[in-house]
């Protein structure tokens, strides 16, 4: 048994030993321990280094509000930084490391920062990094220069680079009553609401229900409070209408009584069970909410209040009563209120010596004197702690006479030996959720605390949350709140009887002891009382400005322990009462939320996938699949030993020499039907569709309302009132919404219906000199010769007994056909085409070869229709009808869209026979050391087998006029520079003789 572990008591299982490491050193703890309690039990006092000054820091609290003891937890390659050691449940194999220290926690080189004293005072960054006005390091460049060094010294844990492999889930839940917090108030509320038949959710951010009952040492209904709480939670488990959510933090309160919660499902386990998510993000819609979130104890501000061994009084009480761990053997307390006396007695009973209770108040009640006597503690009323001593652990404190009416210190400072100092500066109700819900908190001068406002949404408060700090009040308020939330009325049954130590809930209005030395307000961001006063002297009088200037309350703990203190010190500096200085409104999240839980099923193995009907065939036949949005498409069908470039070059070459086939099922397909379908298409496309004959297809271009290019594709007229529109794969959803919007909102008089049929059709594009011969060999029921199937013609026939629709159109620039069949027959038709193509040397090709052939032809895709280009920029102005208005026609000729100097589509040929890079800039004059004056960028590039060169499409300023000239690509990120020739975007077969045949 470790020296700090008590023999009995608490919820840890002393028979179960857990092994873990901290900073590489092996430790043991017991089941039920947190990392903080286990390390304390092992005598560890140093948990981390502070943010700015690298001061040694211990653990301040025992819960979610911990500002100091932040660690990084490692799971394999994945590192999770900035987790409070107080919230980490230990498991076998837990690997945790301390943060913000170099080279080691015990010997930190940057601790020298604190010797500089004023060096890093408030606003340091703003003041210092303005930089000189001229010269190589002028203005922000100076900051960028210094940032490199400072980032390393200041800050929190380091994020990992390994991908997070954990699974996350989202859950929608509905209930009549959501109870947040499971202390005595929450347990009573949940029970009362459940007894009314309400659907109840009870959430608790700790692993165990019971809240303060787990460590208060009080008696409820004749049994230890912890046992009472365990029994109450156990009874709730038996209710069908109650859902218990342990390890679940309600972190957001949104409009419509919608609350967000994070359930940490497997963080406490060695490994997750099958299918178990790491975190679950709950979206809870509650008819009403009971806020029983308790309160946070406040530190006191005095020199050296951040030394390891200085802790909140209730935290030490909690470690002793709940975990069986003594925070020290010789304990001193420093308080402005009665609650510390109960803590002192609890620690005495657990086996520690209480050397002194230092109280700023002169007058103590007789009950407090009795408690001090019982704890065998020296009672120093009218005193204050003015210094702490020790290095990485506390060795003693200095106290002096203190007059709380004027803050004056008097007399000689005397030393007291202690290895632990507990402080209590009063209690602040945890009103974060109520504040998020929309109302402003109200200052209560007696409690020296902000109390929850009047509800603006459907919630009721209970217990310490409302400022009622006694357990008896919590129990009464909890039951009343539960009843009321469930719409029930009071029952006259007796309430559980509480036996508790006496105490006045109102503290003395003392927040700070002014003496020499650094007195910390915000432990996590290293903000001192002097920083707050400095901010005031420099003119920051609004509390919002104060926060931003000093960064008070802006660390990962969001100032849970520091907000009120900072406000009080600011108020004193301003000479105003606290409520006039104001408080800041709390915003979600209450505590840190994993990004993974918010993304949930949108990433990882729960992410939906769209597979074409021929997907399995592609995979079975050696395709390397490429994810495009939710779709998976073949990238290449590589042969053994081939590079990607070799594979696509082979596929494209074979297609141009004989024939190739590609899966085009992912293209968006929309049935546009109805008496006004042709009229509608005339309005949405820039060119005419009402003149299109039945059985023919036409290439169409759509603009946005602002006149910029939107999408392109072919639309087939299948009947007088029946069109099949195709869109690019990426824009299928957007085009559909665009059409629906105009039909529903703008032109409701048009008799047109649009239906997404993307998933109804399987599509295969077959192109090349032999393509027609292959179709002739397998298509029945129709001829496919030039007369029956001219360019842009459509025929219906059968392949291997399956009805197909064939349209002769070309993206590759070859004589090509798109063959559509019902999706369920996609693979059947595909295989029949492959079989028919064998004697003709038909190859399958993927996206890379598709892209190569389209670049050779100079066709545009989403890379060129990038939301900034016009039809003219892309040389598609021949498609802009002058005979009719269409969407975008009024705006497309605006000055800026027709002015010279726009980026225009051109082709580029690499003159050094080296590959070109997508995104590379194009410049007139090459200056590798100082790249400047881009005239455009590459949108797509490939090796062209048809030309035997590396080529690209690019958007270049006044590109048309530059054809035939030379320029350079300038790509400093990838260190690629080189000469190119600017040419027409139609590299290959510009007059289209191959596709027209």
């Amino acid at each position, binding site marked *: 048994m470790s020296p700090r572990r008590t023999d009995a008591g608490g919820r840890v299982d002393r028979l179960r030993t857990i092994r873990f490491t901290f900073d590489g050193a092996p430790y043991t703890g017991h089941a039920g321990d947190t990392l903080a309690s286990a390390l304390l039990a092992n005598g560890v006092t140093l948990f981390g280094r502070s943010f700015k000054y690298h001061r040694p820091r211990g653990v301040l609290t025992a819960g979610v509000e911990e500002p100091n003891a932040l660690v990084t937890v490692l799971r394999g390659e994945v590192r999770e930084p900035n987790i409070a050691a107080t919230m980490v449940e230990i498991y076998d194999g837990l690997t945790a490391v301390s943060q913000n220290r170099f080279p080691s926690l015990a010997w930190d080189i940057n601790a020298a920062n604190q010797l500089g004293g004023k060096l890093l005072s408030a606003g340091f960054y703003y003041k210092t990094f303005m930089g000189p006005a001229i010269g190589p390091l002028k203005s922000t460049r100076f900051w960028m220069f210094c940032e490199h060094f400072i980032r390393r010294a200041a800050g929190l844990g380091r994020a990992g680079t390994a991908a997070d492999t954990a699974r996350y889930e989202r859950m929608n839940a509905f209930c009549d009553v959501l109870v947040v917090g499971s202390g005595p108030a929450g347990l009573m509320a949940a029970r009362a609401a459940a007894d009314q038949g309400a659907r109840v959710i009870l959430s608790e951010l700790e692993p165990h229900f019971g809240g303060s009952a787990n460590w208060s040492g009080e008696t409820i209904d004749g049994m230890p409070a912890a046992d009472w709480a365990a029994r109450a939670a156990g009874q709730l488990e038996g209710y069908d209408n109650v859902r218990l959510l342990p390890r679940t933090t309600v972190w957001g309160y949104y409009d*419509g009584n919608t609350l967000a919660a994070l359930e940490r499902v497997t963080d406490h386990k060695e490994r997750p069970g099958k299918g178990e998510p790491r975190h679950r993000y709950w979206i809870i*819609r509650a008819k009403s909410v009971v806020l029983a979130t308790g309160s946070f104890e406040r530190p006191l501000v005095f020199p050296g209040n951040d030394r390891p061994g200085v802790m909140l009084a209730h935290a030490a009480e909690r470690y002793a009563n709940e975990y069986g761990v003594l925070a020290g053997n010789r304990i001193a307390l420093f308080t402005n209120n009665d609650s510390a006396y109960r803590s002192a007695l609890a620690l005495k009973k657990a086996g520690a010596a209480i050397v002194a209770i230092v109280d700023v108040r002169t007058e103590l009640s007789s009950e407090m004197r009795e408690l001090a006597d019982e704890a065998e503690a020296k009672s120093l009323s009218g005193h204050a702690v003015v210094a702490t001593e020790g290095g990485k652990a506390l060795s003693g404190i200095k106290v002096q006479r203190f007059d709380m009416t004027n803050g004056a210190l008097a007399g000689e400072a005397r030393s007291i030996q202690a290895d632990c100092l507990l402080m209590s500066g009063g209690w602040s109700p945890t009103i974060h959720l109520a504040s998020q819900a*929309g109302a402003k908190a109200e200052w209560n001068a007696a409690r020296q605390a902000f109390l929850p406002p009047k509800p603006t949404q459907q919630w009721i408060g209970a217990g310490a949350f409302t400022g009622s700090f006694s357990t008896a009040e919590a129990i009464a308020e909890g039951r009343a709140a539960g009843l009321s939330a469930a719409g029930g009325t009071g029952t006259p049954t007796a309430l559980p009887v509480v036996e508790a130590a006496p105490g006045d809930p109102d503290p003395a209005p003392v927040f700070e002891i002014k003496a020499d030395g650094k007195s910390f307000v915000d432990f996590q961001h290293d903000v001192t009382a002097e920083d707050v006063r400095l901010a005031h002297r420099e003119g920051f009088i609004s509390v919002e400005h104060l926060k931003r200037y000093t960064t008070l309350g802006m660390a990962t703990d969001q100032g849970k322990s520091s907000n009120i203190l900072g406000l009080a010190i600011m108020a004193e500096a301003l000479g105003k009462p606290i409520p006039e200085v104001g408080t800041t409104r709390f915003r979600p999240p209450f505590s840190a939320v994993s990004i993974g839980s918010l993304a949930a099923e949108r990433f990882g193995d729960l992410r939906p996938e769209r597979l074409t009907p021929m997907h399995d065939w592609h995979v079975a036949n050696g395709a390397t699949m490429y994810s495009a949005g939710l779709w998976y498409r073949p990238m290449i069908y590589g042969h053994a030993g081939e590079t990607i470039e070799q594979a696509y070059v082979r596929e494209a070459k074979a297609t141009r020499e004989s024939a190739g086939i590609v899966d085009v099922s992912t293209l968006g397909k929309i049935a546009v039907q109805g008496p006004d379908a042709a009229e509608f298409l005339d*309005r949405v496309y820039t060119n005419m569709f009402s003149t299109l004959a039945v059985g023919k297809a036409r290439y169409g271009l759509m603009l946005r309302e602002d006149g910029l290019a939107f999408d392109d594709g072919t639309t087939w007229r299948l009947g007088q009132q029946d069109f099949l529109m195709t869109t690019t794969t990426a824009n299928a959803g957007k085009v559909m919404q665009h059409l629906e*919007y105009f039909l*529903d*909102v703008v032109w*409701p008089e048009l008799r047109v219906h649009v239906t997404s049929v993307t998933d109804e059709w399987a599509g295969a594009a077959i192109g090349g000199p032999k393509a027609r011969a292959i179709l002739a060999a397998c298509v029945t029921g129709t001829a496919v010769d030039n007369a029956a199937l001219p360019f842009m013609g459509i025929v219906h026939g059968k392949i291997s007994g399956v009805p197909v629709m064939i349209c002769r159109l070309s993206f590759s620039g070859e004589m090509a056909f798109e063959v559509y069949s019902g999706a369920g027959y996609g693979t059947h038709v595909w295989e029949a085409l492959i079989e028919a193509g064998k004697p003709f040397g038909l190859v399958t090709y993927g996206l890379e070869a598709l892209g190569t052939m389209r670049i050779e032809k100079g066709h545009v895709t989403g890379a060129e229709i990038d939301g900034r280009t016009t039809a003219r920029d892309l040389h598609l102005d021949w498609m802009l009808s002058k005979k009719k208005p269409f969407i975008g026609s009024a705006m497309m000729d605006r000055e800026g869209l027709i002015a010279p100097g726009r980026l225009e589509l051109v082709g580029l040929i690499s003159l050094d026979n080296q590959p070109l890079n997508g995104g590379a800039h194009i410049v007139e004059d090459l200056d590798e050391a100082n790249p400047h004056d881009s005239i455009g960028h590459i949108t797509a590039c490939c090796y062209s087998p048809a030309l035997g060169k590396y080529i690209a499409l690019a958007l270049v300023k006044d590109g048309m006029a530059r054809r035939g000239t030379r320029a350079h690509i300038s790509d400093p990120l990838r260190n690629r520079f080189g000469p190119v020739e600017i040419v027409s975007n139609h590299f290959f077969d510009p007059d289209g003789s191959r596709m027209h045949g």
Partner: protein
Amino acid sequence: MLITCPYCGPRDVIEFTYQGDGNRERPQPASQNLDAWNAYVYDRLNPAGDHNEIWQHSGGCRAHLRVVRNTLTHEISSVAFARGDHKVAARHKAEGKT
């Protein structure tokens, strides 16, 4: 935030796509009044309070709805089909007519 679709009932905002300020007036298709087009394409009201908005129930019936939403509280005071005659269709549906 919940939006009560006249077809589908109260649904989470995640099912809807915001389709912009509902106060915009589209000029006649052949209009050459650039100021009017500019106002339609770019000008948006940004009131602190009730706002007239178009939302599409994209994850449901795909109807476009005219929603009056308070931008300060997210309180929704009215929802109607953006396409006027949908109101009739919904009433028929509610009454069991086809």
